[in-house]
């Protein structure tokens, strides 16, 4: 089956910032995204653990969105801006997809 080259953008960010990022994605616009909860981690501020913090501050999630190369070009700058002062990381990777009509 023929597959089609797309970009997968992944943002690991804090829960309170999540909506800021998804609002950016909505405006690109991309066709969709999925958010995954993290369990624990370590960064420049030390370690954290979902069950050992309370509230949303410091709780990380991973936002995954598959999109075309053009959309990725637009999204990258805007996400950079929105996340700039915040903790977290942004990665872009090449993926092949089935059902290209969905992106």
């Amino acid at each position, binding site marked *: 089956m023929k597959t089609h080259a797309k970009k997968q953008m992944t943002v690991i960010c*804090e829960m309170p910032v999540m909506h*800021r990022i998804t609002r950016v994605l909505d405006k690109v616009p991309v066709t969709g995204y999925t958010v995954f909860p993290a369990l624990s981690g370590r960064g420049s501020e030390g370690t954290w653990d979902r*069950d*050992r913090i*309370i*509230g949303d*501050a*410091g709780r990380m999630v991973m936002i995954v969105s598959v999109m075309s190369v053009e959309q990725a070009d637009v999204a990258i700058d805007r996400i950079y801006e*929105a996340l700039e*002062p915040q903790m977290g990381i942004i990665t872009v990777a090449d993926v092949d997809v089935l059902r290209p009509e969905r992106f």
Partner: protein
Amino acid sequence: MEAILQLAAANILSPPVLFFILGFAGSIAGSQLTLPEAVAKTLSIYLMLAIGFKGGVALAAEGLTLALMLALLAGIVLSALIPLVAFFILQRISKLPRIDAAAAAAHYGSISIVTFVAATQAVRSIGLEPEGFMVAVAAAMETPAILVALFLARSAAKQRKAADPDAGEGLLQEVFLNSSVVVLMGAFVIGAVTGAEGMAAIEGFIVVPFTGVLCLFLLDMGAVAGRGMAQARKVLDARLVGFGLFMPFIGAAMALPFALIAGLSTGGVALLMTLAASASYIAVPAAMRLALPEARPSIYLSLSLGVTFPMNLTIGIPAYAAVARLVTGG
């Protein structure tokens, strides 16, 4: 004085505080003992639902009074005033950047609902009956502090609005519709509407197991606070730790005249002092991550969760109750 010590001893030796200490000590010793996030979140909703409902039922019995209005007003003013004082002190005694000081100050204007619940329990256990409407005062004190902190930090923070015109949206929702205010006030109103009959229907859930549930929750909070305190050792210097220990007493002292003017009962005075003394660690940190991302959470969370919260729970509450008794003669 003896009475105060007795009160303190009774408070420390009550099951809720002992379970808090267990969690705290276990966490410092390195145990993995915590409740899962989903359960901790639910227990905190349970506590707010129960305390809100009971407050509403009490209000239905007492009726609306002038004191309610005055106490609400007092709470709002205190919540706005305390951050200014805290900010001023922090600027004097520490070298914290302006933005960190503003963020930390906001926590002390807002409240810790768990501290409030524990205080209510403690105050009742010594025979005082605080006003039911103190729950509404607690809810009213959650948010003004946040707005004051934003104002304090404005000059320091970059103009994020320019970059994202909707940036404020999430923040306002976080501030005014955060679930603790909704549950607390919603249950309060439902309690007021259904009164004694409603209480009879659900007291098997919100009264019978209440103290035990509080123990379980404080076991978990102890573990979280223990971790916060371990963090505190790394990021806070002696002056900041001192701030975390003494600021509550300043807040409580500021609350005392307001409480007396509002004509609160002895229990009510103790609770308003506790509210003023307590520092937020759920609503305010989340708002700060959005509004002042450059402020370091390690500072403000360590202060409010690792220093102030355990101090209030063990020493603060009995002290405020003792002062309230002395002053009101109750």
